[in-house]
């Protein structure tokens, strides 16, 4: 599968570049500090602490996802190396998929490195393993959706800075749909609430409730933006 050849090269680039390590280190540091302050509240139940951890981690995941994905296609266009991919016998969807796999893989690795924190709750508290697993599933799905959005933004721009700004604007707009949902009357409130990237769709994972509707939502968001990025690459050949 040609996408894996590209994914391997991208993973290699993340390992060699100080940017990838710096983003992961910063996200882990922020996660750790937030977890430390959350754990200082002794009145809080273990399950509540875990819920707070997954809430805080979702912010770090979204920011890291955008920063990791901003370079994927924008940097290739800026450096002219996109020509190597464009003139190789490889489909645009494989280019997009390979890029996505690498960035999503690094983001997932980053999330898994935070596992020591919920496990520490076991020392003095009592939480269910299911809550932890479902919480991580939510983080991973949110990461997949944000990476796909970032990759789409990267396909639109030549500059990484512009790419991250477009990506951040898209993510922020999708998060704020829950505010729109509050302001409109039924049935539109349900519609907007169901589209919001974080609020209604992420909350069940935070509290350890597995909902297949929510899983399907994140998978569809990721698919939609990956498809859009593929179409952008295809369209560029006709310009």
């Amino acid at each position, binding site marked *: 599968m040609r996408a894996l*050849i*590209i994914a391997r090269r991208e993973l290699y680039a993340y390992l060699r570049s100080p940017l990838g390590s710096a983003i992961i280190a910063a996200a882990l540091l922020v996660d750790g500090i937030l977890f430390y302050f959350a754990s200082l509240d002794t009145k809080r139940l273990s399950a509540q602490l875990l819920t707070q951890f997954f809430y805080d981690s979702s912010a770090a995941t979204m920011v890291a996802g955008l920063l990791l994905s901003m370079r994927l296609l924008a940097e290739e266009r800026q450096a002219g*190396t996109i*020509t*190597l991919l*464009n*003139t190789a*016998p490889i489909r645009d969807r494989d280019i997009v998929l390979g890029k996505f796999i690498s960035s999503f893989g690094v983001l997932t690795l980053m999330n898994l490195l935070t596992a020591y924190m919920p496990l520490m709750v076991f020392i003095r508290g009592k939480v269910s393993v299911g809550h932890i697993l479902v919480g991580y599933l939510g983080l991973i799905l949110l990461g997949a959706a944000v990476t796909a959005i970032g990759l789409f933004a990267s396909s639109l721009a030549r500059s990484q800075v512009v790419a991250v700004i477009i990506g951040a604007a898209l993510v922020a707009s999708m998060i704020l749909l829950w505010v729109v949902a509050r302001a409109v009357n039924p049935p539109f409130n349900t519609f907007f609430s169901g589209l919001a990237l974080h609020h209604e769709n992420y909350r069940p994972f935070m509290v350890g409730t597995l909902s297949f509707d929510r899983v399907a939502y994140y998978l569809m968001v990721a698919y939609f933006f990956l498809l859009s990025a593929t179409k952008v690459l295809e369209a560029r*050949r006709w310009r």
Partner: protein
Amino acid sequence: MAGGAARSIFGNHVIEIQELYKYYGDRRAIGPLSTRIAQGEVVGLLGLNGAGKTTTLRVLACDLLPTSGSVRVAGFDVVERPDEVRAKVGYLPDRPPLYDDMTVREYLSYAARLRNVPANHVKKRVADVEELTEIGDVGNQLIGSLSHGFKQRVGIAQAIVHGPELVVLDEPISGLDPVQIMEMRELVRGLRGAHTVVVSSHILTEISETCDRILVIDEGRIAWSGTETELSATLKQGMRIALTLRGAGGSAQATADKARAALAGLASVRDVEVLEPAEAGEGIASLRIAVESDVREEVGKSLVQAGLGILELSREKELESMFLELLGEGHEQPGRRRRKKKQAEADAAHTESSAQNEEPS
């Protein structure tokens, strides 16, 4: 049999272009463009900047898709079967697509894998192209640390690592020093036989040194096609002579006028063009004259008799003259264009100032 391999229909032509058009928005970059290139040919695409060379090459490499027309490479249509075309084409753009954070060997292995070279053959293919392009010594170096010449070689190596039928090189000598240019020339010549090669350049001597056939492209169309000898025969022109003269105690313009008057008596002289002076100094003027036959001796004699000192009298490179002649009707040389623009500005300023002076206060 739309898009399928059709070698039997197309004979031994690797490239078949018919009525190709490419538009960027409303601007026509190329078209109508039709040509054929046979297997094993080394063809030079010659044209001024903006003539449509790079766009043509990008279409051949499937980096861009045509707006209309038919382009077939090795029997496959670039729109209907782009993957098959890409597998048979190696492309070096004007800016080599190199990853600075990879070593040369890692990069070539990556390019080979992307282009369908089986995993167990990659090592051998990479070793082969390293030997051919003479980059074996820098195989373990990071690409970012290489000189421009080596980067260009790595660019060619990635274009041939999968053994393509067609190699497309866009300005391969761009930015190289004279020694590197000679080495690159040898390298391109070395591709002859194993591959069909299309090289673009706006450097005329480069095309004549490396190519079997020249396609002159002008405003997106093939203006002329043939060998250098055929081109010379077609134009039936004589030659161009470059002159740098010194007139005694006058301006450059006075020297040029004196030279014009002296050359007017020679029947063979077709055109006299005044250029920017090639040297600094009082009364020094540079000219280029077009003549029917080799009358350098007569030209020299006439100029001396007119009291002009000859600082330089040389025959211009034949191909360059031919190229200018070929594009002469549609184009002006940049130097002439600049001078005309300057002259037009000066005339406009002069007219304006005269008009102001004539206006009653």
